[in-house]
Structure formats: C-alpha cells, structure tokens
C-alpha cells in the first residue's frame, strides 16, 4: 500500500481530497507531522485561499525544509491542487513573498476584458492535456471544477501539462519531473476527478 500524505498546513479542504482518494481505493493521512511527511510515497499539497498566507503557514509549521527535500532530492511525486499549484511557482501577484519555486512559473491575476466574464473563474471547464502523461490517462476529454482568481504562467512550454480556456488559453496543469500542479479540484470533479486520483495513486 502506498503511503499518501495530504499536507495539512491549514488552508483548503483536505477532508474532500481524502474522500476522493478513498473512493479511488486508497487511503491517505492528513497531517502536518514532519515524520509522517518524511515517510510519504506521494504528497498532495492542497489549498484554497491567499498565496501569502499559504507560504506563511508552510514556514510557521516548519514544513519548507522537508517539502523541499521530498520534492527536489527524494523526487517524491507531489500534486499541488488549486493554491497548492500556485505555491509551486516562483511568485504571485497576490503577495510579496516568494513561492516554493519548484517550477519556473509565476502566478498572475485574471483581468478579463469582457465584463460578462466574472472573477473568480468558478465552475466547470474543459481541460486539454498538452502532453502524454500518466496523470491524464483516460482523460483526453475531461472537464473539471475550478474556483480561482489567479492563474499560473509557466516560463517554459515543456512545463505545460494541460490547458483550459477562460478568456484565452491558460495553464490548468503544470509539471516538472515528479512535481505536478492542477488548478482545478479533482476531489470535486466526479468521474474525471476520480480517474485523475486513480492515475496519481498508480504513478
């Protein structure tokens, strides 16, 4: 049995993620305990909310060192969800603090030119994979649930895992080696989210 840990740093809804993992046939620990994170085979970084607050909480809980070690040295698969994806980037317009900086990218605010497009971008969007990857196995045509006001702009095309359309195309999933981020909520995207969780468990 693989040991999946949902990093509980205080933002987002880890209970919903755990529910979906359970539905996908596995289990997960929701924890901020460094020794449990150290033992994890897979990490999920959840989060809904403010970028600055997210980084502050990771720092206050002394999680930066262990997360850097797991992601960058041990190459443990990491999935960032929503704010958890944005935290993978170098910085965000939302706050004056650096992000984890694991993927060359920055996070910027949606500024739609049409006032019919409301921010936050909330609801279901098609997600189109931009490369062959096991995270998107059997998800060539899929839709997922989104709630966000900021989005990620990867510096390099090779880090673009999937895209969606708000006013224009943007990165709805990014990747670098073992590190993945999705802007949408697989835990709230019924059969598509279930498939993605299964894919992540099997990676």
């Amino acid at each position, binding site marked *: 049995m693989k040991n999946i840990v949902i990093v509980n740093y205080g933002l987002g809804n880890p209970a*919903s993620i755990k529910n979906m993992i359970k*539905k996908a046939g596995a289990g997960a620990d929701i924890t901020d305990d460094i020794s449990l994170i150290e033992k994890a085979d897979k990490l999920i970084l959840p989060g809904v909310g403010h970028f600055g607050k997210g980084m502050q909480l990771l720092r206050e809980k002394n999680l930066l060192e262990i997360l850097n070690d797991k992601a960058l040295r041990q190459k443990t698969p990491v999935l960032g969800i929503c704010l958890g994806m944005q935290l993978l980037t170098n910085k965000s317009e939302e706050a004056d603090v650096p992000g984890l900086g694991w993927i060359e990218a920055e996070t910027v605010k949606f500024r739609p030119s049409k006032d019919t497009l*409301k921010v936050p971008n*909330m609801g279901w969007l098609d997600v189109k994979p931009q490369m062959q990857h096991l995270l998107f196995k059997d998800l060539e045509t899929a839709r997922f*649930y989104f709630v966000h006001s900021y989005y990620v702009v990867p510096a390099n095309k090779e880090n673009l895992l999937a895209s969606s359309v708000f006013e224009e195309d943007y990165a709805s999933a990014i990747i670098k080696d073992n590190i993945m981020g999705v802007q949408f909520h697989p835990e*709230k995207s019924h059969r598509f989210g279930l498939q993605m969780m299964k894919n992540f468990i099997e990676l």
Partner: protein
Amino acid sequence: MTVQGRKLVKTVGFKKPNYIGDPINAIKIFNDKEVDEIALVDISASKEGREPNYSLIEEMAGECFMPLAYGGGIKTFEQAKRIFSLGVEKIILNTALQDNLELISESASVYGNQSIVVSLDIRKNLFGKRELYFNSGSNKSRIPYMQVIRNCIEAGAGEIIVHDIEREGTFSGYNIPLVAEVAKQVSVPVIALGGANSVADMREVIREGHASAVAAGSFFIYKNNDPKSILINYPSQETLEKEIFAHL
C-alpha cells in the same frame, strides 16, 4: 436538495412538504448523473431554531464528489467554520441576513468571497410589489431587496441566489424579469431558482435574465414535472451542450 431533518422533501411555494426519500441515496444518484453542483438546504433548521445537522452534512459531504453548498440554521462564524471543515465548499445564508451581515464579512475574509452564497427569497404582495423574506418565507424584510443584496455584496457575498417563492415547485418557468433586474445591477454571479420546467427555460433565464447559473429542485426530482412520480433525473452533457451552451 431541501431536507427536513434527515428527510429529503420537496415543497410547493415553501409549503406542503412532500417526502421524497433518503438524501444520502439521492446524492449518490446525483453523483452518477454528474451534476455540476449540489446545494443542500435544511428548510426546518432556522424555523425550529436549531443547529445545522452536522452529522448529515458530514455524511453528505463524504458522498458528494462535486462542489457542495450548505444552507440552513447558520447563525455564527463558529458554525460556518465547522461546516467548512466537514468538506463543504460554500455556505448559503438567508435568515442570518436579517441582522448579521458580519457573518458574511467574517466568513469571506477566511474562506473567500466565492464561498459565501446569499439566497434571496422573494414573493409579491397583494399589490404586486416584490418583497424579500427570511426564515423559510416567514419573516418579511423591512429593507428593500435590492438594498439587502447590495449590503450583502459589500460585506463579501460572492454569489446571489434569486428565488421566487411563488414559483417554487410549480414548473411555471423561472421569473426572468426578476432575475434580470438583479443581474443587471450586480457584479457577482446570479443564480436563478424557482419554477424551472425545462432545459429551454434554463437557457432563457440565462439569455434573457442574464443569470450566470441556474438551479432547480423539483425539476430534477420528479419525472416529467409530475409530483406524483419521483424519479431523480438530470439532462445529459450532450443535451446541455445542444440546448444551452451552443446558444450562449
């Protein structure tokens, strides 16, 4: 999905609750139908002055693999916090809007504006004037509804449900003029509720009423809009694509 205690019920004009079945079963069916979002409303919590039914909410959240909103009996930030922690994405407020807009601002500052939905229950009086109600349609607002809506948005509400009480459960069609009046004056998404009778009706309240989204209860619960035959149903993605999205 409206519940009284642990029972899924449907009402007509907020009256005559008709027992439908077990809400957990119903949410499982809605999962399989791949609905976009579920709103669970306990219509007797405020009336009976009791706490939200946390164990039911937790069970429902555990079976709900799509976004879940909960409303009914939320009076304090502590209650809101507890509900969010159970796996609920949004809270729906109505009765608390009478005297407690701080509940909106406090919750929005922690969970974000997108997690606060206000539900405005509106009914015409004898003279045809639209009035806002709280507490399952029993307390009339002294403040006009457009003012209440503005106050709620200012406090941090991220979505507005416009609910026509008289049309609820009647299949007489959405109140398009009412939805349009609100949607034209606010910057946050407006959700139309009350009276849904067809997918075409949904399309029209989006097109003509400028609703950002549509919600329905009876339409998804009864077969062929017939309250005598309970059959949970939901249009397929293909139908929605053809009948709604292709026309927007």
